[in-house]
């Protein structure tokens, strides 16, 4: 009954390759995200996506692209991998309820994918 799942857990690849990381959530949430955690543990939002809007952090290279086949999935595709792409990538999801007294808006994170580019 995993809430947010990612595959693969580990990904080792050569520079220049193209790879994808898959993410699925079974929480019925309407918004999904990708975050990057670097070697210093700093977390940064890359993308947020719901069925209406894709928001891209302006610092993310266009080699990275999210693809959402349906509301429960948001995959991350990376072209022409570079050494600096090595990091842990986390998928997350939440229900965007625009606040309110009963809103929790907690973002639930997947287990992470450790990407190593050689």
């Amino acid at each position, binding site marked *: 009954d995993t809430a947010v799942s990612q595959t693969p857990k580990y990904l080792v690849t050569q520079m220049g390759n193209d790879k994808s990381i898959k993410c699925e959530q079974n929480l019925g949430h309407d918004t999904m995200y990708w975050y990057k955690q670097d070697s210093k543990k700093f977390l940064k939002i890359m993308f947020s996506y719901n069925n209406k809007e894709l*928001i891209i952090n302006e610092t993310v290279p266009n080699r990275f692209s999210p693809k959402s086949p349906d509301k429960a999935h948001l995959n991350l595709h990376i072209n022409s991998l570079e050494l600096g792409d090595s990091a842990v990538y986390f998928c997350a999801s939440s229900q965007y309820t625009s*606040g309110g007294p009963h809103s929790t808006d907690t973002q639930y*994170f997947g287990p992470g994918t450790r990407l190593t580019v050689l």
Partner: protein
Amino acid sequence: ELKVEQNPLFLSMQEGKNYTIYCNYSTTSDRLYWYRQDPGKSLESLFVLLSNGAVKQEGRLMASLDTKARLSTLHITAAVHDLSATYFCAVDERGGADGLTFGKGTHLIIQP
């Protein structure tokens, strides 16, 4: 640009002691989150603070939010070794649409 600053970034303390982690942010948001991360693991949600003056407690951890001061605190009471982890605060500026902006994390080590 939203900035979220945590301090301290590293904290070593003894079991049984009390301590506070501070989180300052630069926006007028009233939505702040605390997460815990163990080495090699994912982020676990600890607290969601959604209004000025919000206070939440779970076990030995208590979090509060002062939106006027743009400050949240995570207080640890009578620390135990199992609380050793990295703690992140994060701010939601636009109701989830933009994702969370995280602080750099506080690496907490609690020694017996």
